[in-house]
């Protein structure tokens, strides 16, 4: 993707990080696209078209045919848990299984990094001690993102990550993801129904139909070359 990277070498912040090739699931597809290291690609499409399922297929949570590569290495070459730790999906609805927020985070994370991240997303530093039941939807959404970042995934699949946030916190979240992307060279796939948001966060936007993806112009996301 990037002109000044001759080979897709792994640790660098350049080259193709995520490649999805001919992915098919549940009578849908084939879907093919690539995301460069440090790039964010937007994914749009009408409700129910299967955007979440596409992300689930990429993270290998549902059976699919076709192939997905991380830095040129096929998904099948990883153990499934290792794959999901590197290609991590943050679903629109998050689930929590312990009573408190902190129990879902690794112990060493509870220190500086987590506190800094909480502040960056506009969350109370005390949030780690809170009980899950008292969290608002928006708080859950942001905490779910932090929880997913614990293992520093190289690919982040975000399913409507700011659907429950107001404009101010949406902005904080967008900045936070951008900084993560720039710092680690992670590739991001961002699902959203908000064209303005995709324009802000993504360098390209793909529109999903049942039989494939089409790239749409970022400035006019509603305008497509091939619409059924």
């Amino acid at each position, binding site marked *: 993707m990037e002109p000044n990277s001759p080979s897709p070498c792994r640790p660098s912040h350049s080259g193709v990080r995520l490649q999805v090739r001919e992915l098919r699931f549940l009578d849908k597809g084939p879907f093919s696209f690539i995301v460069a290291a440090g790039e964010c690609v937007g994914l749009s499409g009408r409700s129910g078209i299967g955007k979440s399922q596409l992300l689930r297929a990429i*993270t*290998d*949570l*549902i*059976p699919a045919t076709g192939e997905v590569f991380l830095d040129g290495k096929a998904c099948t070459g990883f153990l*499934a*848990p*290792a794959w*999901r*730790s590197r290609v*991590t*999906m*943050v*679903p629109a*609805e*998050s*689930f*929590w*299984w312990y009573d408190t927020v902190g129990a879902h985070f690794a112990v060493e994370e509870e220190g500086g990094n987590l506190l800094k991240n909480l502040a960056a997303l506009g969350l109370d530093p005390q949030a780690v001690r809170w009980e899950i039941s008292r969290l608002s939807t928006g708080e859950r959404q942001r905490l779910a993102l932090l*929880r*997913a970042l*614990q*293992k520093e995934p190289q690919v982040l699949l975000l399913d409507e990550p700011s659907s429950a946030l107001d404009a101010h916190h949406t902005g904080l979240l967008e900045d936070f993801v951008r900084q993560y992307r720039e710092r680690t060279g992670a590739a991001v796939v961002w699902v959203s129904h908000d064209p303005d948001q995709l324009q802000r966060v993504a360098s390209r936007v793909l529109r999903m139909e049942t039989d494939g993806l089409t790239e749409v112009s970022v400035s006019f996301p509603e305008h497509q070359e091939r619409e059924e």
Partner: protein
Amino acid sequence: MNVISLSSFDLAIAASLLVVLSLLSMLLSLGLEKKIILFSCRMTAQLLLIGLVLRYLFASGSLLLVLLMATVMLLAAGREVWARQQRKIAGISGFTLSLGAMFVSSFSVTALALLVIIRVEPWYTPQYAIPLLGMLLGNTMTGISLAMDRMTDQLYKQRGVIEQRLLLGQSWQEASRDLRSDCMRTGMIPIINSMAAAGLVSLPGMMTGQILGGTPPVEAVKYQILIMFLIAAGTGFGVISAIWMSGLLFFDKRHRLRLEILKGPLK
């Protein structure tokens, strides 16, 4: 060993209690009278039949017949466990799973008891083998079906949490650990409770039977203790293997939760 033999008239007196109960059920419009009569007749027929079968089996004492009988009992127990599941695993694997768990809980433990503990000659003497197996099958069935039923139900209801944990890179074993140990506890609690209550609240059926049959109480008690140990161990092993095998069925090699192996949604 002088048991007072029961005549048909004696049994008829006991049966008349059920007639009274049916009449009462009609009066109170409980709608249970048909079931009471049908199932008491069915129970009588089943037990009379098994009495005849056992008489023949005891007389012949052939290994082949004992094994045949044991297999029939095992299949029936496996089917019963499977039938008690609210959400069933579709196809043959659900039944095989129940069968496998019952095999572990009862067959293996009975074989151990016959060969190592009681050391009866020959080991397949039907007077020992068949009642022992029957008792183990009957008593471990409850725990195993409870545990399996809870497992499918919880996996279905908590799919969100399980998938969330998988999404965070946990293996299926990690993602379902809490749920599986909870199901194992559910399966084992009844036998632990009945060990606590044995002799204080309830006089176990086998011991009562032996005492009525003229066995000295202390001998009967020793057998009862043996049986309780075997049932507890059998239930535990059966529950653990049932839950482990369910895990292998519900999660595939890529650590995905495959709830589609369940038979359709509940109505």
